[in-house]
């Protein structure tokens, strides 16, 4: 991954023309929107919104069922989205891409299905303290159910994973290591290739939470050799309710169903049921067909820009933002300083002003940021804070957005008499 700071070839202002939300007039008395909360959920370009609408308008029918033309067209578009998904993350086979609602569901699927079949009392799972609750709570529940034990990789002083501690914890011989590629709360990019390689050498399977990496940088599941990768469509310009679990075919084929019912069966009698092949065995019931088709359009949009280019744009903005933030009195930023180890996420505290107050004052200037614990309470505890304010970047952000943020933070300081 090249993170040398080169001028971005993406023009955030031009990109914004593709996004209807940025064409809306601000409500009365408000200045134009600065959207810095893409790590929570991105905005969507017209091509994605139109694709969803077009699916319902022209090719709507349930999939994998009807033998009539409409149903065939709907099925074709849904499976086409799966091919686009496989290309986007370089999966060896589209069947390895299971469509789910979001990252949370993807991880719950693995925890429930793989966990119930493979975890026994005393077995160990290895997570890290920087995980989003969605890569933490499902493991706690299945560990409790199966009598398994969870270890956590600690952090270094500059909020990276402690790789020495990681290697020591691998001596506990975990059956599975589950770690975020990029921290949603502080933007740390974890050395995932090295983590996967070491996990495998210790005999563990590797699940990567890709919710914050797949939307923002090139991710190649085969090159990384991950066993499972979970990510959400709505953080990468796609519809809410679209998402993907990638899993190696051998592993998925050996796993029992997660949810059961319609469309995931091969043959059902009153005595016994046999299950469908991949991916249908993990897609019980009518899926979010139009939304996954929309996600396919989002992936094509991102591929047309080029994921290297997307990453480069964010690095350039991040570099600018981190430098500008130094001018704000009382500001403490979290996460690594090295841009190679940092995604476009800027988490900070401002003096003793609570994150919600910072966020409200920014909102008065129509600047949207996230404030709170970012669903990563153990990490907040490690940092010694209850909450941070988080600004996160994407393709439609510009240096002007950063300048507005900086001005907003000076304003917050003034309201609280700190400047």
């Amino acid at each position: 991954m090249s993170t040398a700071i080169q001028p971005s070839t993406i023009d955030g202002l031009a990109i914004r023309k593709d996004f209807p939300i940025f064409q809306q007039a601000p409500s009365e008395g408000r200045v134009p929107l600065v959207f810095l909360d893409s790590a929570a959920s991105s905005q969507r370009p017209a091509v994605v919104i139109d694709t969803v609408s077009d699916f319902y308008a022209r090719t709507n029918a349930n999939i994998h069922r009807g033998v009539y033309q409409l149903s065939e067209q709907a099925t074709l578009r849904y499976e086409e989205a799966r091919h686009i998904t496989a290309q986007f993350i370089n999966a060896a086979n589209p069947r390895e891409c299971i469509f789910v609602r979001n990252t949370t569901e993807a991880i719950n699927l693995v925890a429930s299905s793989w966990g119930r079949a493979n975890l026994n009392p005393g077995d160990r799972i290895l997570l890290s303290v920087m995980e989003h609750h969605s890569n933490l709570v499902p493991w706690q529940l299945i560990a409790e159910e199966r009598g398994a034990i969870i270890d956590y990789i600690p952090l270094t002083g500059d909020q990276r994973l402690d790789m020495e501690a990681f290697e020591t914890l691998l001596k506990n011989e975990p059956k599975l290591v589950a770690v975020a590629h990029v921290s949603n709360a502080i933007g740390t990019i974890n050395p995932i290739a090295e983590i996967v390689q070491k996990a495998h050498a210790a005999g563990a399977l590797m699940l990567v939470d890709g919710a914050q990496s797949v939307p923002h940088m090139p991710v190649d599941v085969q090159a990384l050799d991950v066993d499972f990768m979970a990510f959400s469509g709505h953080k990468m310009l796609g519809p809410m309710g679209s998402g993907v679990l990638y899993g190696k075919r051998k592993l998925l084929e050996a796993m029992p169903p997660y949810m059961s019912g319609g469309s995931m069966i091969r043959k059902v009698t009153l005595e016994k049921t046999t299950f469908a092949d991949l991916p249908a065995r993990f897609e019980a019931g009518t899926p979010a067909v139009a939304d996954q088709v929309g996600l396919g359009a989002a992936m094509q949009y991102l591929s047309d820009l080029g994921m290297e280019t997307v990453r480069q744009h964010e690095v350039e903005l991040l570099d600018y933002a981190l430098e500008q933030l130094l001018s704000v009195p009382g500001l403490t930023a979290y996460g690594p300083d090295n841009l190679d180890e940092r995604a476009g996420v800027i988490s900070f505290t401002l003096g003793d002003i609570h994150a919600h107050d910072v966020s409200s004052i920014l909102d008065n200037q129509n600047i949207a940021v996230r404030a709170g614990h970012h669903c990563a309470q153990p990490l907040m505890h490690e940092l010694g804070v209850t909450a941070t304010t988080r600004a996160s970047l994407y393709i439609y952000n510009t240096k002007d957005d950063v300048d507005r943020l900086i001005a907003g933070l000076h304003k917050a300081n003034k309201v609280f008499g700190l400047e």
Partner: protein
Amino acid sequence: MSDDLYRDIILDHYRSPRNKGTLDPADYSYEDVNPLCGDEIRIDVRVKDDKIDEIAFSGRGCAISQASASILMEMTDGKTLDEVKAITKEDLLEELMVPISPARLKCALLSLKVLKAGIYGVGHDDDE
């Protein structure tokens, strides 16, 4: 757009909270959190002749939650338990004198939630 939310009354109570601290012993202590933003409020009360004799709050959180707790102290000190029970969300929001957006309502009302939970606990004991 002005920063109406952070008018002087809020900042005054946030910087100089009334009745901040704890009472030990207290006739009751109750605390709760706002899981969304991690605001924490604890309220201790001493009751004499069915009236609030002493009341104090402690905790941490945003300016809205802490100022609201401080204002609630002023609203309730010396009042009878029945009068405190009669305080509504609207009463507290009116005393705050700033527009509270839906996203911040939980911050603004946490202190009243804590106090009510405690007071009804006290009333409960009286009945038994």
